[in-house]
């Protein structure tokens, strides 16, 4: 059944799994993986709506921009993670807390 709802459900499940990863992981890189899952879920929704309710390619364009942003975000975030590791010797997001008030 190639129907819009199936894709939306897959997107919802991916989003929730990504959300759970972001909330429950302590390793900063695992948190990043959760963010990637969330972005992929959003992208599935964009492309599904582009096919089933507009039949234009605007959703694809938006998906491409999401992928661009995800790549840039991963690069910068990993640079920050490496810096945190150099300073704290850990990438546990609970322990690197020197800004905590």
């Amino acid at each position: 059944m190639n129907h819009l709802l199936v894709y939306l459900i897959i997107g919802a499940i991916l989003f929730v799994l990504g959300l759970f990863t972001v909330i429950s992981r302590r390793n900063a890189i695992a948190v990043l993986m959760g963010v990637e899952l969330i972005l992929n879920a959003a992208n599935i929704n964009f492309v599904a709506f582009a096919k089933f309710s507009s039949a234009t390619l605007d959703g694809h364009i938006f998906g491409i921009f999401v992928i661009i942003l995800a790549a840039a975000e991963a690069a910068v975030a990993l640079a920050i993670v490496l810096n945190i590791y150099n300073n704290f010797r850990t990438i546990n997001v609970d322990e690197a807390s020197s800004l905590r008030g």
Partner: protein
Amino acid sequence: MLGQIIFYVFAGITVLSAGVVAFSRKLVYSVFALLFTFFGVAGLYVFLEADFLAAVQLLIYVGGVLVLLLFGIMLTNRVADINISQGNTNRIVGGIASLGMLGITLYILFDTPWNTIGEKVMPETVSTIGELLMTRWLLPFEAASVLLLAALIGAAMLARRSGEGEGA
């Protein structure tokens, strides 16, 4: 019929490997499960007639982001240790929040009368996307190029060891 079976195989791969990403105790397993998630999502794009996006997904996510994540893991842990565990916090709070979110989302999904059009042929992807990027979406396209340049410079600047040169 065969197409449907393949579709459900891709959907299953996507969801199950995303589950492994979320629940695996070993970080390296999570990363390699993420590889299968990206493959599954690329397969779903193919079913949605988004062949260009599927190719981009494979190139950038599998070829770029995933390698970057692996580098991050290798650089911040003992390399030979495949059993890098990842502690979890907030499992209960996160589980409640995620299940609540899933419930709300599914309720909305099933409750909304989605406005779909019938079987319409999508325009040809690659040439149309190229045209759209150069006409209607030119400004976001240029903004994205500036953003990528900024990310490139920023990442190189951040990842540089302090001591080489000034600052950082």
